[in-house]
């Protein structure tokens, strides 16, 4: 089953860490990604640039409106994701539990991918 693992953390708190601590966390992320890839369950994954670089688009009066910032102000911000192919939810939970953002108070949201039947060609 495919799952999207959404990585949340408080950006301000993360930025306030010492350079050594930040470097250590980066190392942890590289190692984590390598482990995930080696397991064969890694499909995709990226880090996202900070929330200050976000742009949100909505419709107003039928016309697209573009606004600086995320879709909503939240205490924790989306910082990255992994798309994995795991046998079941427990396997996805196991991967989520090892993510380097957790010790600092971050969280991971696990969403199963909506699989559509491909239309017969």
């Amino acid at each position, binding site marked *: *089953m495919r*799952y999207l693992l959404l990585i949340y953390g408080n950006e301000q708190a993360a930025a306030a860490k010492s350079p050594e601590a930040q470097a250590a966390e980066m190392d942890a992320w590289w190692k984590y990604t390598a482990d995930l890839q080696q397991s064969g369950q890694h499909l995709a994954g990226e880090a996202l640039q900070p929330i200050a670089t976000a742009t949100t688009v909505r419709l107003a009066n039928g016309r697209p409106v573009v606004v600086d910032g995320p879709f909503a102000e939240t205490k924790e911000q989306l910082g990255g994701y992994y798309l994995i192919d795991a*046998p*079941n*939810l*427990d396997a*996805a*939970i196991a991967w989520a539990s090892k993510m380097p953002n957790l010790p600092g108070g971050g969280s991971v949201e*696990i969403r*199963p991918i909506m699989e559509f039947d491909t239309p017969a060609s």
Partner: protein
Amino acid sequence: MPNARDSVEHVFRREYGRIIASLIRACGDFDLAEEALQDAFVQALDRWPESGVPENPAAWLTTAARARAIDRLRRARVGAEKYALLGEQTTPGEGAFAMLNQGSDSSLEDDRLRLIFTCCHPALNLEAQVALTLRTLGGLSMAEIARAFLVPEPTMGQRLVRAKQKIRAAGIPYQTPPEHLLAERLAAVLAVVYLIFNEGYAASAGDDLIRRDLCGEAIRLGRLLAALMPEEPEVLGLLALLLLHDARRGARLSSSGRVVLLEAQDRATWDQAAIEEGSGLVERALLMRRPGPYQVQAAIAALHAQAATPEQTDWPQIAALYSVLASFSPSPIVELNRAAAVAMAYGAEFGLALIDRPEVAGTLEQYRWLHTTRGELLRRLARWQEAAAAYTRALQLSENTAERAFVTQQLATMRTAAGKDS
């Protein structure tokens, strides 16, 4: 000659949990398994009055249900993969019985264990866990569960539907947890069973029978867990705790529906068989040398239950056990109970000192039992004004008729005593 319909219903109710567990494993789907079993039930009602109740009714129902599941899948035009899971028997016959009897009973037990852990998976919210557990392991109907928890039927129906959808959509696996997760997952299972018991314990005489019977249901689940996991001391501890509480249930409320405190209960009405069984389980569990919160709570309950009169209660032991409990599950409420035990063992002023710490009295300000306990201890110390204030606060916080009557009576008794002093 037993009425065939009664036999079918009796067998159905008794065997439901076992059969559904293995069906869910075969079908990989809660709804399909339930519907197939319902079909088999209807079939049994149709056939058994004529052909008689079969020697192994559970096996008959299981085979029939598997066949009905194949039918349903066929009608839904699902792929060959699912056929393979169910085998190709279409009617209960020699071959089917052979296949079923081949596996030892232990695979049936493993299935029920898998089912329990699936129903209590942390990815499901607590209400969903409770509803699913009662539905699939308890065999209660959706209507019965709704009445038991004082919730409208459609709401309970929705809860069950959403829970099963979540299991399917999120890929919650049908398996017992791996070793390193077993302890925390087991704690969740035990918490669900304990919650069901407490819901029943809180039921009043006027409530639906099914609600009052939740205690019996919880004990049945506890027994099932103890049979499936006899080497888990916390499982034995929980069953012991349920039995020991249940032993006193008859004495808890007076004929007028008022709460009767432990020290005032008629101990002759306590169920001695349940007390004996519960006490035995506590001993067995503690011998395994892996203490835990349920074992400790059960040990405390056992000490209460073994005291022939309130005066013979071993309060120092109980106070010590509450300290141990605090090391496992620290909470202001555990501290409150410990303080009450300390008061009984060593004097009201010591108990009061423990209660009047900010982490207890401060945190529990909205908790009426804090104030009734303070009131009682202050009363024993003849600090009438403060006692009255505490009881009054308790009255403000309580909506329960039986409790309010009790506190009002305490206030009245105390005013009389205060009057005698002046």
